[in-house]
């Protein structure tokens, strides 16, 4: 007998529809008062600053490992001088935006899903509703905006750390000075290597925020439901980030004519 996957086609469609309507509601509510600036700043701090150490570890390992892995092959083709440029372009265009977004999705989407899910099952969201406090603006709009602000900033921060990781490996393995590494990298990258990669993380931040909030806001089934919301938030947001990345790369290539 065929084992059920636990996620029927019907459920997937319902989820896609639910998330789409939730995203639409975000765009409608983001321009409607009350505007919760203070809470948005607090959430940006929670999501952004508290991800600093995680992003730093991921980025430095990413930069270092990519350099270590690519150096032998590049040397074989007599292209050792191009290692900094190759690493820089790979990191700035693709690796840093996507890997950091997926890693942050693991931390932030799960956190938002579990937090709002707990608030739902303990009736705190209902309590906001009956106190006429507009929980959507206070809880959802602020978190989605915070993710959209934090992700590009974390990506820039990750870009820098990843290049430091690469520079350290180049220094240790090839004796390349930091100044030479810096000059080589700056001469080999331009606008299209950096800006589209950073801008697409705004979309990834939106995905993390909307999916995390959707799962938490619609959590049911007690504590088990809260766990499910957190897990689903990570799985769905990570998948959507990867799918969206493919589309954004295609559009970027068309707009900026990147070879």
């Amino acid at each position, binding site marked *: 007998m065929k084992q059920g996957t636990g996620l029927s086609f019907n459920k997937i469609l319902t989820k896609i529809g639910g998330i789409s309507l939730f995203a639409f509601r975000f765009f409608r509510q983001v321009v409607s008062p*009350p505007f919760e600036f203070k809470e948005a700043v607090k959430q940006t701090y929670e999501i952004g600053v508290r991800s600093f150490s995680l992003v730093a570890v991921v980025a430095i390992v990413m930069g270092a490992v990519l350099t270590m892995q690519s150096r032998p092959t590049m040397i074989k083709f007599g292209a050792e001088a191009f290692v900094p440029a190759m690493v820089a372009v790979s990191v700035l265009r693709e690796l840093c935006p996507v890997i950091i977004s997926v890693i942050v999705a693991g931390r932030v989407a799960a956190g938002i899903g579990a937090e709002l899910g*707990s*608030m739902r099952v*303990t*009736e*705190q969201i*209902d*309590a*906001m*509703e*009956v*106190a*006429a*406090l*507009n929980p959507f603006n206070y809880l959802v709009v602020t978190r989605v905006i915070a993710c959209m602000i934090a992700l590009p900033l974390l990506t820039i921060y990750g870009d820098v750390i990843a290049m430091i990781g690469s520079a350290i490996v180049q220094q240790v393995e090839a004796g390349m000075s930091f100044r030479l590494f810096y000059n080589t990298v700056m001469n080999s990258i331009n606008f299209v290597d950096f800006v589209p990669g950073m801008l697409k993380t705004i979309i990834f931040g939106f995905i993390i925020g909307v999916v995390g909030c959707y799962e938490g806001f619609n959590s049911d089934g007690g504590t088990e439901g809260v766990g499910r919301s957190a897990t689903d938030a990570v799985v769905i947001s990570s998948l959507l980030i990867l799918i969206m990345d493919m589309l954004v790369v295609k559009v970027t290539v068309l707009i900026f004519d990147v070879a």
Partner: protein
Amino acid sequence: MAEKKTLISVENISKSFGKLNVLNDISLEIHEGETLTVLGKSGSGKSVMLKLIVGLLEPDKGIISFDGVDLSLMSVKDLHAMRKQIGFLFQGGALFDSMSVGENLNFVLTAHTDMSLVDREARVVKALDLVGLKEKLDEMPSSLSGGQRKRAGLARSIVLQPKLILYDEPTTGLDPITAASIAELILSLQNQLGVASVVVTHDLPTAYTISDRTIVLDGGKKIYDGPVEGLRTANQSHLNEFLEAAELDRSRREKIIHTVL
């Protein structure tokens, strides 16, 4: 004596969740300043009734009006204006975890009033004083006991000085002594603030302590509507069953208290 004004009017409402028919053609009225208890066993639709009254759920059939205005015809703005006049005490208190007790109350005041910080703080302290939690102003909800959380939730419900307070199982899950103190608190708030109250409970002693009027729900239907003293003489089989079970529970609890103390 002039008849009291009707605050909430519920006319022939029915509500189902899937195939489960929770409320079936229920009608009732809540008047200004009156305390109505809604009795019934678990799953009889008592909490659903409260959520319908405050507009958290929509009825499948029937009309609910607040101050003569049909809820289903209200705009979002009107619904918010109505909710500001209603306090709601949830079963677990539903305090916002990320805020201290004082911030929980202040949050509601800041959103809905133009009061100065000093006035807001004074109002918060006054509300907490009424429920006997003045000293817990800066504590986080996680450090409060179950009874204290309900008291703090009650303080948040009364901070906007509502016309009506809805209590969802205010004594459930509490020891008999704390349950009795919550019932006393509801009564004293009633006397001091003069608000109307709807108290959903399956705790008969609480109902006897606080009720002006009682309704009993069973299987989604209203089987009794009248003074709490009339429950024993109503002589309906469903009602007797409920009363006997409640009395048994009460005598068991009294026996336990007697043994422990």
